């Protein structure tokens, strides 16, 4: 005990000089959330805001589907349609897909590795607020001179030609470029945090090959983010410079080359696909063993496949450019590498099937979503391999076939995993379970709606319907399938509505019982502490001796290999113990500084977009103020014990 106090005295004492701002002290109410550095609260904020953006992006999609339901649609103007499909894609990738993974990662990674928080709690807070302000910044463009309308991959020279030339009227492309740079800064900060946490802060005995697969996948994702964000940031800077300062990066008339943009973007863009899907694969790899009552089949192979996908993800980017004339050698090479990446993906699918095979399967809602993931992701993977065959790809490029393909991967895959994750970890996050009946309704509506929406798009693509075209004439043979697709989209909307109802219904349900630490009879460390966990996660940091540690504390095998439950209390510890003295476990204290630094970024962003150098200077000053306050503030206030007053 004395050693702790001594260590803190030694490290903290010199920093207790003058302060620029008093330390925030709120432990309840909205202000405690705004200034929190607790990874679990930050995760809930990530998840909530990402869900809001899921609804916003979903509503944009509904408008797109309404517009296309009948030929010669008039729901949206062409200009508004461009804004909606651009913002739908940008929202779902940057404001929903990545933050939702950050939500699960933030909540679960420290718990799963047996740590009390992430390595840099304030950097974590910064990552969230950059996401929040970056999202608001992007959406403020609707009110401030036009939303982005050049597609989510914003090809040059469309997006890079100076405003005066009138290719893309309005400030949309500027908001888009600056917004993505801003979100990229936040993503890199979050990635560094996950990497250091996973590499450096595992509990004793938690070796790399004992890590839950979800943690492994977040590790790969963090590396991908770390290396994928810089090229796209460079591309965005070039777009912005071309558009506003008349550089010639993508101006072919002066010797520039739009293909350079495509290369820079897809060097980011393809790893980004794996940044989005790998967390989903991780979630499914956690759910399947629990609901099959079997360990994950071929753990090491699943992990290695994830790493292989991480590496191969860097050598396939040009398959997005087969139709842009990059030459036969490049096309063949990238076609081959694209076929190759299907191998580790296929291996994983077989591992998941092997996990379920012969297991005592419980078809609870999380399991249903996980199984839906496997089926639909496989379909998306198969249409993906079709794109590796170059002649076939050139036929499919920019048709609805491509739209069908990536929605099967990202919606049929990622979103199903995410919803499975919601139902699986909800008791851990909030201390109450979601209703199974509504959950199953949610699942079946979503399966039917999803396949009704996107399966017909394969055929529409083959029949030549181009994507990103705001309307089509009668008599193309597309009418029926488009209508079907629109009906499906509204079924998806209904399923999301059921999910939202479920949240409130289950929270208010008559006579609901508080859930135990381990309601699913699960396998990993997060289920060893109370639901929801206390601020310090574990009263005593667990000593890990096995992969699936919790399982091994509960069960053993008899001579014939049958599962035998260990005597009650088999070393499952629960955190709400009364012998923990309030304040005896030092946790990082809340802070204002990351928030102040994050506020500076959109101000700098507006300064650039409107070329208002005063605004820019103001932003820089605020940012500098935030950083300098941050630098001299100790992470933990020695005389403060916020969790003592019961933050939870």
């Amino acid at each position, binding site marked *: 005990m004395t050693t702790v106090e001594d260590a803190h005295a030694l490290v903290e004492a010199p920093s207790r000089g003058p302060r620029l701002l008093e330390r925030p002290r709120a432990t309840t109410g909205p202000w405690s959330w705004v200034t929190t550095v607790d990874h679990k609260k930050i995760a809930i904020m990530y998840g909530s805001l990402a869900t809001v953006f899921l609804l916003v992006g979903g509503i944009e999609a509904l408008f797109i589907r309404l517009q296309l339901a009948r030929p010669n649609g008039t729901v949206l103007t062409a200009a508004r349609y461009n804004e909606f499909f651009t913002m739908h894609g940008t929202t779902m990738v940057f404001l929903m897909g990545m933050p939702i993974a950050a939500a699960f990662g933030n909540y679960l990674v420290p718990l799963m590795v047996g740590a*009390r928080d992430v390595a840099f709690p304030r950097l974590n807070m910064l990552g969230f607020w950059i996401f929040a302000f970056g999202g608001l910044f992007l959406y403020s463009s609707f009110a401030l001179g036009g939303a982005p309308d050049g597609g989510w991959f914003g090809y040059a020279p469309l997006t890079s030609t100076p405003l005066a030339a009138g290719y893309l009227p309005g400030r949309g492309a500027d908001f888009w470029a600056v917004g993505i740079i801003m979100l990229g800064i936040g993503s890199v900060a979050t990635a560094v945090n996950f990497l250091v946490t996973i590499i450096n802060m595992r509990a004793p005995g938690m070796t790399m090959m004992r890590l839950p697969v979800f943690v492994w996948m977040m590790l790969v994702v963090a590396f991908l983010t770390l290396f994928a964000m810089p090229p796209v940031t460079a591309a965005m800077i070039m777009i912005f410079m071309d558009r506003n*300062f008349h550089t010639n*990066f993508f101006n072919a008339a002066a*010797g520039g080359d739009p293909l350079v943009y495509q290369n820079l973007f897809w060097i980011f863009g393809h790893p980004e696909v794996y940044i989005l899907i790998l967390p989903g694969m991780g979630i499914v790899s956690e759910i399947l063993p629990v609901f099959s009552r079997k360990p994950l089949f071929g753990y090491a192979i699943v992990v290695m496949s994830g790493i292989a996908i991480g590496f191969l993800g860097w050598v396939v980017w040009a398959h997005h450019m087969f139709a842009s004339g990059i030459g036969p050698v490049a096309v063949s090479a990238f076609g081959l590498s694209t076929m190759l990446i299907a191998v580790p993906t296929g291996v994983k699918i077989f591992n998941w099937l092997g996990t379920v095979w012969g297991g005592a399967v419980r078809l609870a809602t999380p399991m249903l979503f996980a199984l839906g993931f496997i089926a639909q992701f496989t379909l998306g993977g198969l249409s993906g391999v079709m794109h590796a065959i170059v002649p076939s790809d050139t036929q499919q490029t920019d048709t609805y076939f491509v739209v069908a393909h990536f929605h099967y991967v990202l919606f049929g895959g990622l979103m199903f995993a995410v919803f499975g994750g919601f139902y699986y970890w909800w008791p851990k996050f909030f201390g109450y379970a979601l209703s199974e009946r509504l959950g199953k309704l949610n699942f079946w509506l979503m399966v039917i709606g999803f396949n009704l929406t996107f399966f017909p798009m394969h055929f529409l693509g083959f029949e030549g319907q181009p994507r990103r075209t705001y309307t089509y004439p009668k008599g193309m043979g597309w009418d029926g399938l488009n209508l079907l697709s629109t009906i499906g989209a509204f079924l998806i909307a209904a399923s999301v509505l059921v999910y939202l109802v479920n949240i409130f219904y289950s929270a208010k349900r008559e006579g609901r019982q508080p859930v135990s630490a381990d309601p699913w009879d699960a396998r990993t460390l997060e289920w060893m502490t109370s639901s929801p966990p206390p601020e310090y996660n574990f009263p*005593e*940091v667990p000593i890990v001796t096995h992969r699936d540690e919790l399982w091994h504390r509960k069960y053993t095998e008899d001579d014939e290999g049958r599962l035998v439950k260990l005597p009650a209390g088999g070393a499952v510890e629960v955190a709400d113990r009364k012998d923990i003295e309030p304040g*005896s476990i030092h946790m990082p204290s809340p802070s204002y500084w990351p928030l102040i630094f994050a506020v500076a970024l959109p101000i700098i962003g507006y300064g650039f977009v409107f070329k208002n150098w005063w605004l820019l200077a103001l932003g820089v000053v605020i940012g500098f103020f935030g950083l300098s306050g941050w630098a*001299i503030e100790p992470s*933990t206030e020695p005389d403060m014990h916020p969790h003592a007053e019961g933050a939870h």
Partner: protein
Amino acid sequence: MAQAVVPAHSSGLAHAEPGHDTNTGVSNPKLAIWLFLSSEALFFGAFITTYFLYRGRDTQFLKGPKPEQLLNIPFTSVTSFILLMSSLTMVLALAAIQRGDERQLRIWLLATALFGLTFISGQVYEFTEFYRHGLTLSVNMFGTTFFVLTGLHGAHVTMGIVWLLMLWGRSAQGRLPQAKSEAVEIAGLYWHFVDVVWIFIFTAIYLIPQH
């Protein structure tokens, strides 16, 4: 007692003493700065690659001054040398704080910042000279790539200078004791990285013949 196991892990948070209780033995902040710099390497990599892709590609347009008419290799060699010497003073600053000599630390921090500032002044002079001779961002591809690549590097050096001066200020207030030498080490890693990037940029733009 719960506290019995606390030291090993609760102090695995960011304020941990360097390296003592992490799985790898490398302290969290140091691991973080290495990861961040690896990300930065790809950022500069993208711009350097773009520079090479466009080098000499716009000869048919024959607009604006050519690089060989502008580049003053002796002058930039001198400022580059000064920037590289600042890495030496940075090492001396770290050595000073590691042996607890705070006065020497401040001297070498200031010297490093000053060398950096000299380099930036040279860059400002170079930019104005080039501009006077008609090289703008838009006149040709050399203007586009040169100004953006070296400008972004200059911005990184400038941030490094601000970082060094903040450390100097902390030390002057007596808030940068020997125990916190890692703060200097981390700033140093950033500073050396920016210097190494300049070696690549200098080679690419100034030393490799244009045609």
